[in-house]
């Protein structure tokens, strides 16, 4: 078990930490900076879909409806916390 824990910690840590050491030694061109600045939005996209359909694995539409409600609540300018509560309530009501 100790071996598994140490191994998992190490292979998770190394990819996280390497960029902290290398960015100061590298000078990126403009297009690379634009690429890296777009990464957060791309990551958000990739993290949301298709994963959201697995909220209730046998009923993918439940996650999708929860997501649409979240989009609506965020669009009218609600705080992230309220968006989260709204989506949880939606899924809860749909699965009663």
């Amino acid at each position, binding site marked *: *078990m100790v*071996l*598994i*824990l*140490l*191994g*998992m910690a*190490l*292979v*998770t*840590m190394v*990819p*996280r*930490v*390497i*960029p*902290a050491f290398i960015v*100061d030694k590298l000078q990126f061109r403009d*297009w690379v*900076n*634009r*690429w*890296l*600045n*777009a*990464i*957060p*939005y*791309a*990551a*958000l*996209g*990739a*993290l*949301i*879909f*298709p*994963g959201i359909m697995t*909220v209730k694995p046998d009923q993918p539409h439940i*996650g999708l409806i*929860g*997501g649409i409600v*979240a*989009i609506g609540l*965020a669009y009218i*300018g609600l*705080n*992230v*916390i309220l*968006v*989260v509560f*709204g*989506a*949880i*309530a*939606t*899924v*809860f009501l749909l*699965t*009663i």
Partner: protein
Amino acid sequence: MATDVVSNAEQKTAKEMIHKGIAAGFPIMLGYLPIALTYGVLAKQAGMSLIDLTLMSVMVFAGASQFMGVNMIAVGAGALEIIIATFVLNFRHFVMSLSFMNRLRGVKLRWKFPLSLGLTDETFAVSALHSEEAKQERGPLFYLALILTAYFSWIAGSFLGGVLGEVIPAQLSQSMGIALYAMFIGLLIPSVKKEWKLAIIAVIAMLINALCTEWGMSSGWAIVLGTIIGGMSGIFLMREEEA
């Protein structure tokens, strides 16, 4: 604290930064607690001791890979197999860290190093969308407070899950499974409202991820490719100044 009167004003801004960081980390806490509890319960059922399952949260701090690890331990997979699968699943953090650290260029390594250690999907997403703080002198304190809020709620939730067992009714915990997705959406939409091109970047990443998943790629690589290729569209869509 060997400070004099002059540093009083600075002290206050440091405190404000920490408060701001905790506030920004609060939605992550909300999303982490139910998931961490579930992790604790499952890990206990898989036969892990309370110490081991809490230690995994302390040392690894990466939700999806911990669930996978617990599953693999439960079915008796080998250590090497588990470690390689963890690497593949968590490699996406390299891409995210590169993006975040590029924002923190002006910051000293003794700050960048601990901040990079605490990078998860969620802490990255929230930090990256608070890019103004990266330019401020006490910005690192903001990110540190945000990350520690997330970190300690993850550890506390795992421990509680291991102690209490099935505390949350299944239906409620299942409903809470949408929490982090909703948080990601709640982070993305305000940016998209300001600049619709960002939606194109996100949608391209979604489609690439969905295609790769469809073709049977592991979810770890699918997210890495979706993020890298989706981000590539930003080369053409983003202007230099854009957050």
